[in-house]
């Protein structure tokens, strides 16, 4: 009976979601899923000096919070950098807006106009 209940729970994502939210006291009205709000333990490598800084400057049991905040601040900039087009591609995209019926010879004439 208990096993059956566990299995049924495991296959019902919504029930599991609600249970975890209740357990972790997450606002039940939030639209954010557990995956986004929960925490996971990860292992990262940092330079030696960063490690010294973390040990000396950040109080014990607050390192994770500090690292997490630092990374979170970097995320919007990282996304913006990823989305930003290379200047050459950005310039090339202008053709969609400004393409005209000028021929190559007309463009050359425009460049050299006044030089002769």
């Amino acid at each position, binding site marked *: 009976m208990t096993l059956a209940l566990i299995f049924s729970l495991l296959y019902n994502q919504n029930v599991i979601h609600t249970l975890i939210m209740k357990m972790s006291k997450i606002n039940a009205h939030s639209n954010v899923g557990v995956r986004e709000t929960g925490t996971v333990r990860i292992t990262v490598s940092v330079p030696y000096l960063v490690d010294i800084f973390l040990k000396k400057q950040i109080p014990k049991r607050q390192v994770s919070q500090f690292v997490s905040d630092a990374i979170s601040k970097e995320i919007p900039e990282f996304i913006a950098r990823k989305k930003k087009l290379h200047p*050459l*591609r950005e*310039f090339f995209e202008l*053709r969609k807006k*400004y393409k005209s019926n000028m021929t*190559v010879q007309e463009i050359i004439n*425009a*460049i050299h*106009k006044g030089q002769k």
Partner: protein
Amino acid sequence: MKDYVIDACVVLSMILKEDKKATAFCQNLIMETEKNKARLWSTFFFRHEVANGLRYSNKDKREVLEIWEKFMKLPITCIELERNFLGSVANLSRKLDISIYDTSYHYLALILNGTFLTRDREYYQKAKRLRNIQCF
């Protein structure tokens, strides 16, 4: 790393004129530049030529300013040829019967051992024997 010298016509035709072959060529050039496989060079008067081309194109002031703003961000290194090089450019220009302006682009490609990219077929026909030139 490839070195390309580009003239004002290449840049302006990138946005003012669209044909399949040129578009494909430009896409390839952009990809190479994005991946740091190519560097773009030009002469010191290149920006003036682009500005003049825009001035006499059929674009209004607002459009010209937007194009110019984006153009100024392009990763193109503009080089001023030294006095002793200008003598050689002048000789070459006289020999080919072409303007100093066009010859300077090509000469720059020759000293960088790169490729001069142009859309000026007339120049290409006169100067292709010097090599280091591609017309598309």
